[in-house]
């Protein structure tokens, strides 16, 4: 079944088409969300929300872009929204702690391990994921799509609705910022080999 046929069937409310949509795109949606939010439960929640939104708003899909591009945009938007909410909650928790209320303050970010990274590279990957949290969200999105989703710069440009030149620039800045963050980290924490 082609993407166009799938979209038409989804627009008709076909349940079998929805099942096929989830089967075909769950890894793509989940992996993208996971790269951004760095938490497996949150990524699972986001993946559910993405498919529910697609089911409810597929009639608004006009076919101006590829269906997968549209899906990527929804997944990225939801994941970034989730991150913002989390940050707001953290700030609110901090303000609450100033006024003596300690409920819901312990929003600790657990050490994230991406399940797809090879065992021998896990430690370095953890440090990279920590550094990723420190860079601007556009750079992080471009880096995640390219490195974790294996999208070419051209595809990243389509998903982010920008030019190839802009993506090259984003990736350049992302790498420079990550180098800076990692150097700062390793200057204080050189691991014992």
């Amino acid at each position: 079944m082609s993407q166009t046929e799938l979209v038409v069937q989804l627009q008709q409310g076909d349940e079998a088409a929805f099942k096929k949509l989830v089967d075909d795109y769950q890894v793509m949606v989940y992996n993208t969300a996971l790269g951004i939010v760095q938490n497996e439960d949150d990524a699972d929640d986001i993946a559910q929300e993405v498919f529910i939104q697609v089911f409810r708003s597929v009639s608004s899909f006009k076919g101006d872009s590829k269906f997968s591009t549209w899906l990527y945009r929804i997944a990225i938007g939801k994941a970034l929204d989730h991150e913002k909410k989390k940050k707001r909650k953290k700030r609110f928790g901090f303000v609450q702690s100033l006024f003596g209320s300690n409920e819901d303050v312990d929003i600790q970010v657990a050490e994230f391990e991406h399940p797809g990274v090879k065992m021998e590279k896990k430690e370095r990957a953890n440090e990279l994921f920590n550094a990723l949290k420190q860079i601007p969200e556009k750079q992080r999105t471009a880096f995640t799509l390219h490195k974790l989703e294996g999208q070419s710069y051209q595809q990243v440009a389509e998903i982010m609705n920008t030019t190839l030149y802009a993506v090259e620039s984003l990736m350049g800045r992302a790498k420079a910022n990550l180098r800076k963050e990692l150097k700062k980290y390793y200057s204080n924490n050189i691991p014992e080999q």
Partner: protein
Amino acid sequence: MNRQEKINKLVEEALGSLDDAQRAEPRPYLLTRINARMNKGTASVWEKAGWLVTRPVVAFTGLCMIVLLNVLVVMNKTSHSNNRAEQTVQTQADELSYTASPIYDIDNTQP
């Protein structure tokens, strides 16, 4: 290898650590979880109202409106009570037929 070289090596290793990473897969039965979530139905009217009221913009605007209404009520009451006090004094003066006579009225015995 000196310290700086060691740091640079670690940085490059970290940057390349995702190069051959596999895509992560969600836990099984994602479709079942999605269906369960959709069947749970949409939020009730009260849940939606609660969500709306707790939006920072709505909450702040509501708070400003309440403060503004309070200020208006207090100002209105103050001006009303001033008018009423003046009226009361005037009424009492009328009832007692109190009129302050100027001093020249006492001295002036001529009609």
